[in-house]
């Protein structure tokens, strides 16, 4: 036992020295996460605001004026007035505006006489998601405008049904608050799987593993000596991302640090297991890197619920997502940050992570032998 610990200590010391001296390890462990965090924190948001709309009012009067100012009064839209629909069309085709609001010549007359006056709306449907969000905002603005008009005229209601939306956990519906927590899963995948697979492949390439194999160090010690340092590195990355998310980007954190740490540890073990497993059959860095990106990094991005809703995917793809460890972790992350300790989310997902960690680590242990063939 004492001998084993001594060997482990020697290997750990070596690993620590290597991490500190290898620029590419540091680049993957710190530079890449920092770039991702900055991009997602500052650059990427799914929420449209100040969407440029062309407004064509063929016969301006007080009524059309009130609708246009209702549009401009929201943070969602900025309006630009065009005299003819042709001019607006040109701006639309040149992608200068994302939509056209077209109030025809008889708009006010129809509105006051028999109602049902059409507000022509053309949105650019190329970016379907944004188009759908713009539609939603427009409907909301329209309903508010109707209600305000009815109230002003002393009539009972604009529309018979009044919708009272209530958004739980993310009242501002900010996409940053939901993307940045998920980023932790991506960052930990990079250190856990990609970096680990790369460093072990490097040991194969340099022949250092062959030399270690004939020493007294057991395969368990060799694996453990890889796991522990990258575990520390991964947890460090998690805590750094958490700190930056909360301080720099003001993402709320409503859960408990303890739960988050425990869940992260489970996920990291699963990711490390995958990294070890990849490196047990990919013995050069190029192949190991490729495989790690394809089977860990991309799925963590696309198939984890990080950006895209899993429930809406076709069933075959949905089945695959059950094999993606990041899926379970992203669910926990989003709850921990925005909701708090929701045990009904945490417990099943944590159990799934535990299972995956056991499977991957177990497979890596079985796959590793102190032999070259």
């Amino acid at each position, binding site marked *: 036992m004492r*001998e084993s610990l*001594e*060997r482990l*200590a*020697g*290997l750990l*010391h*070596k690993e620590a*020295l*290597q991490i500190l*001296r*290898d620029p590419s390890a540091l680049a993957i462990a710190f530079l890449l996460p920092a770039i991702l965090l900055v991009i997602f924190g500052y650059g990427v948001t799914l929420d449209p605001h100040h969407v440029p709309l062309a407004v064509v009012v063929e016969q301006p009067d007080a009524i059309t004026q009130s609708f246009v100012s209702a549009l401009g009064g929201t943070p969602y839209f900025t309006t630009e007035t065009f005299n003819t629909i042709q001019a607006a069309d040109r701006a639309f085709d040149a992608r200068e505006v994302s939509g056209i609001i077209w109030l025809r010549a008889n708009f006010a007359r129809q509105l006051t006489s028999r109602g049902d006056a059409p507000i022509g709306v053309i949105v650019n449907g190329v970016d379907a998601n944004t188009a759908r969000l713009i539609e939603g905002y427009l409907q909301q603005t329209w309903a508010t405008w109707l209600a305000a008009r009815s109230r002003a005229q002393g009539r009972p209601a604009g529309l018979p049904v009044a919708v009272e939306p209530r958004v739980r956990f993310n009242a501002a519906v900010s996409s940053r608050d939901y993307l940045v927590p998920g980023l932790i899963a991506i960052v930990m995948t990079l250190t856990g799987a990609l970096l680990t697979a790369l460093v072990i492949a490097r*040991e194969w390439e*340099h*022949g*250092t*593993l*062959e*030399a*270690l*194999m*004939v*020493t*007294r*160090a*057991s395969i368990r010690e060799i694996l453990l000596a890889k796991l522990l340092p990258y575990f520390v590195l991964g947890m460090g990355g998690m805590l750094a991302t958490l700190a930056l998310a909360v301080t720099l980007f003001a993402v709320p954190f409503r859960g408990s640090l303890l739960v988050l740490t425990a869940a992260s540890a489970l996920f990291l073990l699963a990711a490390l297991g995958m990294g070890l497993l990849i490196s047990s059959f990919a013995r050069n860095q190029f192949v190991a890197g490729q495989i790690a990106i394809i089977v860990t990094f991309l799925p963590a991005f696309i198939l984890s619920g990080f950006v895209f809703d899993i429930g809406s995917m076709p069933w075959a793809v949905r089945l695959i997502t059950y094999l993606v460890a990041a899926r379970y972790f992203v669910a926990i992350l989003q709850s921990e940050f925005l909701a708090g300790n929701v045990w009904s989310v945490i417990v099943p997902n944590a159990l799934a992570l535990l299972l995956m960690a056991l499977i991957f680590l177990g497979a890596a242990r079985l796959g590793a032998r*102190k*032999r*070259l*063939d």
Partner: protein
Amino acid sequence: MPAAGESPAALRLEKVSHAFVSARRTATALREVSADAARGTVTGVIGPDGAGKTTLLRLAAGLLKVQSGRIEVLGIDVARDPDQARRRLGYMPQRFGLYEDLTVRENLDLYAKVQNVPAAQRHRRGGELLHMTGLEPFLGRLAGRLSGGMKQKLGLACTLVRVPELLLLDEPTVGVDPVSRRELWEIIDHLVHTEQLTVMVSTSYLDEAERCQRVLLLHEGRLVAATDPASFTARSTGRSFHVSAAGIGKRQLQEQLARTPGVIDATIQGAFVRIVTAPGAQPPADSLAALAAPLSVVAVPPRFEDSFVAQIKQVSAPPPPNTPAIATGGTRSEEEASAAMTRREGRAPSTTDEAVIFADRLTRRFGDFVAVDAISFQVRRGEIFGLLGANGAGKSTTFRMLCGLLPASDGTLRVAGYDLRHAAASARGRIGYMAQKFSLYADLSVAENLRFFASAYRLHGAQRSARIDWALEEFVLGPYLDVVSRDLPLGYKQRLALACALMHAPEILFLDEPTSGVDPLARREFWLRINALAESGVTVLVTTHFMEEAEYCDRLAILAQGRVLAAGDPESLKARARTAAQPQPTMEDAFIALLEAAAAPQAA
């Protein structure tokens, strides 16, 4: 002392066979090899490339699964209990896995801890090893920054932090310069002496094999001979001769002798050609009577190498005598031949005084470090000029500057009248270049490589196909036409590399360590071709650290620490090292003597 009941052999192999199975083919590496190594002895494993040396050592170290047969290490069945066996053996792979971003001390400490050397012993043992390997001054240096020789010594030190009972070394001296080689062997000998170590070492240096108590000769996976070096050498008694002939150049003579039936081997040695005849062949004087010139044939005592070559050639069918016909140009198309001839017209096929390669006070600095320090030399047309030196002496840097791959910091250089770095691209069409690692496109087939390099040298149309045909015939590459270069045997890779470098019949040929890692037989064949080229007027610049290859050079320069230590022809350099104790110094002796002499004034 072996305990009672324990097997006296430190390593015992019984009918060990091993095959590597891949999707495409099955390669048999070992066929029913049975041998053993007695305790406290050094056993050498020799044989051509691909003979199965590495597989044998890896099997013994428990790194490969024993497929058939039985291997016992110190009485332990390796297949059954590899961990127990590993606790008592040390193994150093061909490229020892040093952590290049760790320092010498850190590497040593790591292996000490991993091998559970008690802290008290660790210090003493580490100190001893560092002293023995001469690495004390470099404790804080990163292993990646050590020279090749120092890396190997550090690797050996790491293997020896805990004294094993059986030490397995896989080609520990490949790419290591003669001085470091000598030092490595001194360490091994010392350990065998003081610590009762059993050593099994594979090597492609035959002089190293001679230092062993026993040699195992492997060929194509079979154990061909297992005996002590002296009796192995004695196998070719009465078959080794020195031949010389008045009026015929040594190269021409060698070429003719090599083609003579009954002669197994012909090499240039000093002023003579050394030949080995087939067993039972006629005395050479008779068989050589056909040669015009009067020959002087003197029987000489056999060397280890003679038996090695004879033994290998005996068991393998002799390859078709592919006579280097570069000089005659017999197989070239008319057009091509005339193109080549116009270039060489009016030039005697021997050396002239015209300097084709010219370096004057050539200097290269990397930061503060002066890699090449004001080197000057000249190479005449048709000459084979060698650059010799230890690792880090500045050979490669000089070489790269001459080829235009690296700018010189200072000094002038001319190759065929140009500085290749600044000359028009077409000037490079006059040189051929063969890099150390046979830098061909590994994924391309032989034919594709040839076609590419023919186009690279601006050949096209009929001329291009004629040259490719020439290369296929000349280097017997025909059967391998569609084989992917990666899968070629090492010797053929080397042939292909040379064929590509000669595609355009260059005037000057640059060869960077052309025979590194190649077995003695392939080396011989290679030099035969180079000889023929030189005979036809091609100027050859070659770097090497095989000292016996210096014998093939007309003149050579020995480099150390970026300076020319000595220059001249092989005989005169050897003569400098002649002492009473060493009346017949080898090139290696001369080299080491020169280095020691150079170091002495500094030390004083």
